[in-house]
């Protein structure tokens, strides 16, 4: 009988002590905010396009950090961004839902523009300049190609154009050898989640 009592008391006492220590630790090591949000946000391409289903890059980063959103929703970021986020979060990479399109830039056909400023209001990065009743123009170097300005335009005078390839920004492709292609195949296999 005393043996059982001793067992209960010692085990219970020990568990209680451990619980107290952990409770104190919980107070001492409480983490304010989530430092992961900033880290994820830094990986996102900041197009603010909303294609992930969140109203911007930061909200998506918050959702990912909370574990609510998957890592594979950023379309413009593509495979690379997905992998980086997966790495950071310590989860398995997931296949992308959509292939990223070629980088685009918005272009306003100025002779058709009525100067309504609706596109200016829609632009998440202030890349459209113009005043009411004046022609608007896209600052091509600032445009993220998010297409958010296309919808609001009442006269449909905004086109999305493919960004022209500059000779300064050209980069070498992979060598045209079996080995290099093998590497590519491996990456694609990864992207398919196999």
């Amino acid at each position, binding site marked *: 009988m005393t*043996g059982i009592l*001793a*067992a209960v008391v*010692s*085990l219970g006492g*020990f*568990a209680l002590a*451990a*619980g107290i*220590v*952990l409770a104190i*630790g*919980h107070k001492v*090591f*409480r*983490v304010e905010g989530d*430092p*992961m949000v900033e*880290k994820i946000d830094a990986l996102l391409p900041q197009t603010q396009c909303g294609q992930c289903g969140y109203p911007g890059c930061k909200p998506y980063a918050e959702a990912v950090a909370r574990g609510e959103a998957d890592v594979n929703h950023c379309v413009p970021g593509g495979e690379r961004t997905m992998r980086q986020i997966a790495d*950071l*979060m*310590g*989860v398995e990479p997931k296949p992308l839902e959509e292939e990223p399109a070629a980088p685009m830039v918005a272009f306003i056909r100025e002779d058709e523009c009525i100067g309504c400023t609706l596109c200016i209001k829609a632009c998440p990065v202030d890349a459209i300049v113009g005043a009411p009743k004046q022609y608007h123009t896209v600052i091509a170097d600032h445009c993220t190609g998010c297409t958010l300005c296309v919808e609001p335009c009442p006269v449909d005078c905004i086109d999305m154009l493919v960004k022209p390839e500059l000779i300064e920004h050209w980069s070498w492709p992979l060598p045209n050898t079996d080995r290099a292609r*093998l590497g590519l195949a*491996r990456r694609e296999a990864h992207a398919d989640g196999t």
Partner: protein
Amino acid sequence: MVEFALILVSAVLVNNYVLTKFLGICPFLGVSNKLETALGMSFAVMFVMTLASTASWLVQTYVLVPLDLMYLQTIFFILIIASLVQFIEMMIHKTSPVLYQALGIFLPLITTNCAVLGVALLNVQQKQGFMGSVLYGFGAALGFALVLVLFSGLRERIEYAPVPDAFKGSPVALITAGMMSLAFMGFSGLVRL
């Protein structure tokens, strides 16, 4: 002094936890994808295992033996290890969020890591003294860390290799682990305790 050195060599090389005792295989395979993660995990395990073997020796000697509660060994040890891991998890979360994310589910997994429980139980079994227990725990963890880091290096290299589809991922990792285990058999008989 020589005895302690032998305990260390034995725990690290000859009776390596992963490659000869086959304990702690889960984190060995799970956290060895990247060198950085493996290093982080190694430190965490070293910390936990040393502390766990110390604490469990203390409990064993000053609580269980006097009260004749040896049959509660396992449950006591699990309790110790679980609360230790919880505590360390909170600490890492505060001090190094990236390591925290990298260790992911593996930190809680240390709780049920058979290597940690194994070292506590084996200490009792081998009737080690206090210093012996601490060293044995540390040595076992060091052996685990050594093998984990070596293995993660190998896996990073295999990651680039055109492994046939049937062997991709775990199969080739297990074959590699087997090869390492074979190589470690060379140490057998190195130390006779």
